[in-house]
């Protein structure tokens, strides 16, 4: 395994989260990070974004939860997780031993719940919270927070009021106007943005004549969605001031660079972790090579280069 000497050229500061490299992991695709220790050195990852955590334990969706699609996959895990208390007691201590920022992805069904969760996670060892707003808003008849600028902003405010940590808001791409969503949560005080979450899709088993996923619909991720993700980062980067963590279909350093050029200050590896569990570490080397080849001194110099001047 090639160890990359970062020497500060890849260092980024995302709303106060100090990362050695801008390569992080996408929530839900990296477990708690510890699962990957056979394959990579967690300390060589910019930040470990752990899987979606809720106040109470959740057992997730029934039936088949994942299926491959052309250059992508659908998942409907349904936020299975052991709950915040378990995370704090059993997982965080192990993560704390490592020199890597920990970002906890949080989900709830009311703004208050997000607030309570943020407060509970406002402890040493947690470096930031990432708000997953692609969850159904039970108050408003199940419409996802992530598709309504106002309720998204409400969640952001509830979280900001309850934590001393940097707050990242992760946007859903299933909206007519991603810029409107971004501006709304920026206004509400988010310190950074993650985009994109998964697109809603489904697959039908033509032999059984019914949906493949137990949950019928699922979230589409992987290289198939990259053109949509790059477009959204490119559009949002032109309008917001907060830093963006770009993700969606990144399979290698070239794909990552597309996101930096589109205006992302950091990126996350998601589905690709399943194909190559070393990627979140090795991709940094590829980015350095690109910087060298084009004569850039550091990653900052390429952020947003493809944006209109």
């Amino acid at each position, binding site marked *: 395994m090639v160890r990359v000497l970062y020497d500060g050229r890849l260092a980024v500061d995302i709303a106060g989260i100090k990362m050695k490299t801008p390569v992080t992991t996408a929530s839900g695709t990296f*477990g708690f990070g510890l699962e990957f220790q056979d394959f990579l050195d967690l300390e060589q990852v910019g930040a470990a974004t752990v899987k979606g955590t809720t106040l109470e334990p959740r057992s997730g969706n029934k039936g088949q939860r994942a299926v491959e699609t052309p250059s992508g996959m659908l998942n409907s895990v349904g936020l299975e997780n052991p709950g915040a208390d378990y995370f704090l007691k059993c997982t965080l201590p192990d993560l704390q031993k490592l020199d890597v920022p920990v970002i906890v992805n949080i989900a709830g069904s009311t703004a208050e719940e997000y607030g309570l969760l943020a407060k509970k996670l406002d402890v040493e060892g947690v470096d930031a919270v990432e708000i997953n707003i692609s969850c159904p808003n039970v108050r408003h008849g199940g419409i996802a927070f992530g598709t309504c600028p106002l309720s998204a902003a409400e969640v952001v405010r509830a979280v900001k009021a309850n934590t001393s940590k940097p707050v990242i808001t992760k946007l859903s791409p299933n909206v007519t106007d991603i810029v409107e969503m971004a501006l709304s949560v920026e206004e509400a005080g988010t310190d950074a943005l993650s985009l994109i979450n998964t697109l809603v899709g489904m697959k039908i088993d033509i032999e059984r004549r019914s949906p493949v996923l137990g949950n019928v619909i699922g979230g589409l991720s992987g*290289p198939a969605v990259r053109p949509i993700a790059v477009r959204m980062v490119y559009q949002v980067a032109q309008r917001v001031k907060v830093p963006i963590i770009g993700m969606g279909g990144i399979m290698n350093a070239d794909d990552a660079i597309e996101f930096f050029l589109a205006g992302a200050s950091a990126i996350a590896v998601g589905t690709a972790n399943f194909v190559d569990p070393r990627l979140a570490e090795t991709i940094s080397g590829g980015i350095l090579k690109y910087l060298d080849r084009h004569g850039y001194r550091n990653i900052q110099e390429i952020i947003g280069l493809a944006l209109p001047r």
Partner: protein
Amino acid sequence: MTKVIAEAKVIGQRVLSRDVRQIDFLVPSIAKHALPGQFVNVQTSRHTAPLLRRPFGVANVDRENGVLTIIYRILGEGTQLLAEACSGDRVSIIGPLGKGFDLKAKKPLLVGGGLGLAPLVYLAQCFCPEPVSILMGGRTETELFWQQLFQDLCEAIHVTTDDGSLGAKGTVMAMLPELLQKGGYDRVYVCGPEPMMRAVAAEAARNGVPCQISLEKYMACGIGACLSCSCGGVHKRLKVCTDGPVFWAQEVTEW
């Protein structure tokens, strides 16, 4: 047991039946650790479609020579690509993955159907020279090659086919009760379609024989990170890819 990702070299491919193949990989780093019941996650394409790795049970291992064997049925794109691999080709494999079978039986009965028989080959091999019996269920006699594979590894091979074209007519349940009553088995290991495993586990329980099952769930990561494969357990949620695929039958409450 550390999991590794390795570039395996294809060293042989055998046609076992119309749509079943056996492939041998030279991959010492995985072969030297792999236990019966564990599986490997194989990348079938360097392109983005097919995207995910495909999981296959370890069907045999030659530790000395670093060879790992899988037996697979050509079903879709991934297995089709695997079938096109030639000797010398490199294939990325992650393994060994998951928890394998408990090996502490004195007189084990192996029960399998379809490709579920693949991991049982390696299991039978590991029990040698202990006397192993196997009960195989199939649809028709077309998959005779399984008998050849188990021939030198088992002292008794019992066969059932749905149409009676080979062995007893019916499912494995046509023979299992009698075998369990008279055979003196101290462990049942079953791997096959879910209905078969449920029926076998229930019968084993009736006879007071401890039973291990090997679950198959759609897997995206194979290393416990994505929760695609989780199932309900007695004490907690279980992940088939890391807590299994082999479980004690009573451990799993919701498949």
